[in-house]
Structures are given as structure tokens and as C-alpha cells.
């Protein structure tokens, strides 16, 4: 994946997503929700290209269903659209459902982007200097899991070849027993191996002195600039929210604060990764055509 924002320092990535997801979870004002969803969708598509279509369709479907379901459980509201099983189905509840679903949609989209950008190694690098032991622990688990999965498959294969495998059509009890035997064998293998790992750590000086942490990611001038812009925009959004620009009440009737500059700042904040992405793509094209 060639994404400019993904190449930024993990701290920049992390803070951005915390901002985006927390704002997305709090802000229910329809304008903010719309901006959050659209910006999230734009970056999601930029990151995942054709692979974005299917999950996005599913998320949208979920949101639509939840929107439609909300008025069934919530009968408050002034404008009754129709009656369902003798209960009123109101316009306000529908709008409220739409806003809540939008909030969920925003969070899902930004979490999807988070997972694509902030990979496991960035996460551990981020906490490497603050929580060295925990960060090392995470790295070790990340190292061991694929290893154990491979060993587990080996055990399953080896047992099959001596007539101890479980068939696909075996009853559940037999499958469970077979699985637990495999699991038990894998546990032994992993635990015995871990003694070697501990030896290897100690022989390379683990615990001899206070650990330092090798930083593979370095904070560059661009990172600092992006971070500054991010913080400034977020400050504007918070100010706007504190001034009541995002105030909204859905029931019994819709009252929303008028759309103002706060939404623009919010949009600008959320579009930062997409802008960086676009800028880099453009520069690449220009520099290529220059040759």
C-alpha cells in the first residue's frame, strides 16, 4: 500500500485516529455525522481500493436496517408516518435512528482505516519507550502466534498420517477430543520452546540494565507539520462544540444548531490523510512527467 499518511510517524497516526473516532462517537449533529461518514468513506476507499466495496456495502446495509428498526422500539416523536402493529412509527425516531446509525458507520469506517494504517509493529513502536515491558510482550506474542499456528497445522497433519486424524464428518464429541489432544501437544511444544526463548533473551543481556528502545520510525519535519495542523484543527472543533455548534435534540422534535464554521474545521481535520495521499500521488505524477 502506498499511502502518504501511513508513512507518517505512528504517533501522528495514532493521535489522528483517536481524534477521529472519539469525535465520531460523540458528535450526533446530522451535519457532523454526514461529514464524518463521507470523509471516513473517502479515506477508506483510498486505502483499500477495490477491496473497500464489499465491507462498505455491508456497513451501509447494517446502518439502513438499524435506521429502520429504531422507530419500532422508540415511539416518541410528533410526526407519525404510519402505524406498525398498532404502534406509531415516527419521523423523528427515524431521523434519530439515522443519526445513531451514522455514528456507528463513522466509527466502523475509521476503525477500518485505523487497522490498515496502524499495523501491529507501529502500535508496539509507539508504546516501546513508554511501556517497554508490555511493548516487548506484545512483540513476542506477535512473533509466537504464527509460529504456533504453523506447529498446530503440522501436528494435525502428522496425526492424520498415523491414523489419528479426525474426519470432517466425525461427531462433535470426537472432533472436540481430537482438537484438545492437538491443542495439548501444541502447548507442550510451545512451553518447551519458550525455555529456549528465555535463554536466548538472557544470553543477549535482557534484564542486565534498563532497556532502551530502537526507534525504527523517526519524527520528520513533515510529521511535525501534520501534527501541528491536526492539533490546531482539533482545537477549533472542540471550541465549536463547546460553543454549542454541535447541539442537537431529536425527540420529541428535531432541533439542531445551525451549520457553522465548526463543521468546516471538522471536515478539514478528517480530510487530512486523504489530502496527503492526493498530494503525494500528484507530486509523483509531476516528477515523472518532468523526466
Amino acid at each position, binding site marked *: 500500500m502506498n499511502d502518504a499518511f501511513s508513512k507518517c510517524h505512528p504517533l501522528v497516526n495514532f493521535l489522528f485516529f483517536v481524534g477521529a473516532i*472519539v469525535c465520531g*462517537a*460523540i458528535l*450526533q449533529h446530522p451535519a457532523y455525522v454526514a461529514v464524518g461518514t463521507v470523509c471516513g468513506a473517502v479515506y477508506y476507499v483510498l486505502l483499500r481500493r477495490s477491496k473497500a466495496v464489499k465491507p462498505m456495502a455491508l456497513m451501509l446495509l447494517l*446502518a439502513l436496517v*438499524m*435506521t429502520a*428498526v*429504531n422507530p419500532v*422500539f*422508540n415511539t416518541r416523536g410528533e410526526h407519525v408516518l404510519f402505524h406498525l402493529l398498532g404502534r406509531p412509527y415516527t419521523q423523528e425516531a427515524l431521523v*434519530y*435512528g439515522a443519526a*445513531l446509525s451514522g*455514528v*456507528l458507520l463513522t*466509527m466502523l469506517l475509521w*476503525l*477500518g482505516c485505523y*487497522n490498515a494504517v496502524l499495523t*501491529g509493529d507501529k502500535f508496539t513502536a509507539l508504546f516501546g519507550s513508554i*511501556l*517497554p*515491558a*508490555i511493548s516487548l*510482550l*506484545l512483540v*513476542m*506474542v*506477535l512473533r*509466537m*502466534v504464527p509460529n*504456533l*499456528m504453523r506447529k*498446530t497445522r503440522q*501436528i494435525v497433519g502428522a496425526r492424520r498420517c498415523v491414523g489419528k486424524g479426525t474426519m*470432517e464428518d466425525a461427531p*462433535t464429541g470426537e*472432533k*472436540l*477430543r481430537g*482438537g*484438545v489432544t492437538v*491443542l*495439548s501437544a*501444541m*502447548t507442550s511444544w*510451545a*512451553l518447551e520452546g*519458550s*525455555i529456549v*526463548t*528465555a535463554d536466548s*533473551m538472557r544470553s543477549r543481556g*535482557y*534484564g542486565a540494565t534498563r532497556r532502551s528502545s530502537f526507534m525504527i520510525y523517526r519524527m520528520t519535519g513533515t510529521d511535525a507539520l501534520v501534527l501541528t495542523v491536526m492539533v490546531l484543527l482539533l482545537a477549533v472543533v472542540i471550541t465549536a*462544540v463547546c460553543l454549542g455548534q*454541535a*447541539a*442537537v435534540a431529536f425527540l420529541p422534535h428535531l432541533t439542531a444548531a445551525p451549520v457553522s464554521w465548526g463543521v468546516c474545521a471538522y471536515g478539514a481535520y478528517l480530510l487530512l490523510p486523504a489530502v496527503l495521499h492526493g498530494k503525494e500521488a500528484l507530486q509523483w505524477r509531476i516528477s515523472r512527467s518532468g523526466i
Partner: protein
Amino acid sequence: MKKSTAVTLLVFFLLIPAALYLGLQLPGRSYYLTATLIILEILVPFFLAFEGRRPQARELVVVAVLCAIAIASRVALPLPHFKPTIAVIMLAGIAFGTETGFMVGAITALVSNFFVGQGAFTPWQMMAYGAAGLAAGFFAQKGWLPRKPWALALFGFFAVMLWVGPLLDVCSLFLTPIQINRQTVTAIFTSGLVVNVVQASGAAATMLLLGRPLLEKLERIQIKYGMLSGGAH
């Protein structure tokens, strides 16, 4: 220890009330955010305590390998809904005590989501699993949990039914974009009940079959490590 006690006090008397106050001030529906914030504040002292102990290589490796086993265990079983993960976590707690049990649970939840993608439920899962490991360790330390297959299985079943499942249900309740009232709460908890029963039976079955052998293996490793540590000094 003093430092982590101070942090615990700080969390309970300052940070959690602050989070609650903040939650009330936030516009709109902010149950999820407030609760998540409180969960994170509970998790932090545990992590700091672990960090402050400056764990030895052995301790670190044991926690890591237990987490890895808990995560990788789902490959071993050819049954879709039976996940032995929680059982492994609780057995870790029983064998190595409350703190290790908690760490194994919390880290397992965090790292397994590195593989399937982090979700809004990650901190909740960390809390649920961590507490399950801690509780298993606590009951075992107090001698209330005999190391008999049936006792382990029962404990596993109720730990999932009464704690892990409901906590995750609360998370999905807070996340579901729907007005929270008696009807919706009932709907969510009922739909969660089926999953919880399956999960709890999975945990119970794993505890029943795997409990004793796994505890024996862990004991063997403790002896082997003990010998190794003797040689170091």
C-alpha cells in the same frame, strides 16, 4: 508496589469520577465513550504494575507463550464456535496467579485483535478476559477452586455466562444505534444469550478435557524454569 497503589487510588478516587463527570457533560449519547474511558482507567494500573515489576525474561516469556497459545488455540479445534481461548486464560490464572492471569487475558484480547482487526470492543474484551484470568487465579489462590475437571468446567461455564458474556453484551448494547429502553435491553441480552451459552459450553468442555493436562504441563515448566533460574546466580 507503593507507586502502583498510588496509581490505583488515583484512578478510583479521581480519574473514574472525572470520567463520569465528563461523560455527563458530553453532548448526545456517550455511554460507550464514558464506559470505555473507565475501562481503560482500570486497565492502566495493572499494566503499570507489571511494568514496574521489571519482569524477568522467564516471566515475560511465560506470559507471552500463554497468550500465544490462547490465540493460536482456535486453529486446533475444527469446530467454529468452540473457542478454547478463555479456558486457556483461566488456566493460566490458576497456574500462575492473579496478576499473570490478568495480563494473559488482557494481552490475548489485544493481540488477537491485531490479527482480525481492532474494533470498538477491544478494551472491553481486554477487561472481560483479563478479569476472567484474574478471578480464576483468585479463586485458586483462596483454595475455593479445586483442580478437578468438573470444578474447572463449572467455573469456566459460569465465568463466561456471568461475566465475560454479559460485559460484552453491554458493549454491544452501547454500540447499537438504538434507543436504550427496557425492550431493547431485553432484545440484546436475549440475542447474546445464545452465543454466550455456546461460548460457555466451549470453555467448560475445554476446561474439562484440557484443564488437568495443561496444569500439569505448566507445573513441569515451572520446575524446569526454577532449575534454570538457580543456575543464573
